[in-house]
């Protein structure tokens, strides 16, 4: 995982292969795509690339870089929440 440079923009993750509009770009207004849940047990985990904080550094992680290892992916509502 290479260290990422830090700017004022707020980077976010995206699913690999999904079309994305860059924040701030004057992209023509499109009807918001209905998000399709692609996850089911026994199916491939959707690949993604996303910014991350890891041991003092800002990095980027890509799910498919972990092929060959078991991966635990945990979502949670927010930092500094209680549970």
């Amino acid at each position, binding site marked *: *995982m290479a260290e990422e440079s830090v700017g004022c923009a*707020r*980077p*976010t*993750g*995206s*699913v690999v292969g*999904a079309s*994305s509009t860059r924040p701030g770009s004057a992209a023509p207004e499109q009807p918001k795509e209905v*998000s*399709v*849940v*692609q*996850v*089911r*047990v*026994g*199916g*491939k*985990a*959707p*690949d*993604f690339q*996303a*910014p*991350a*904080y*890891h*041991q*003092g550094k*800002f*990095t980027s*992680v890509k*799910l*498919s870089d*972990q*092929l*060959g*290892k*078991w*991966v*635990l*992916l*945990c*979502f*949670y*509502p*927010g*930092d*500094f*929440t209680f*549970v």
Partner: protein
Amino acid sequence: MFSASVDSTFVHKMWDEQELSKMVTGGIPFPMISDAAGNLGRVYGVYDENAGVDIRGRFIIDPDGVVQAMEVMTPPVGRNLDETIRQVQAFQHVRKTKGAEVTPSGWHPGDPVLKPGPDLVGNVWKVWKPRK
């Protein structure tokens, strides 16, 4: 191991430094992903559009990139890490035996496993006793 929330990586840094490192020596050892736009949560089915957050979703992904297990919970109840580890160990065992051995409910490493086949039909009770 990855964790993910809609917080920025800057907030992850502060949370790790200010609070989590007081509970975990050396701070969080795995990357803390920022899903600021909810793109990951949406495709994994855990993004709450009304609240603008990723709810508690946990996915076990095997070395081929296949989702073997998922658990999704509303926010107020925390997870049980022991159960997650138990499931990973069970999936690892099944994978090691290429599916020849499967693990009954509540299985822990070292417990009897089941070998599916014609002889086992109707005879699980002989080889596996539930606890209590």
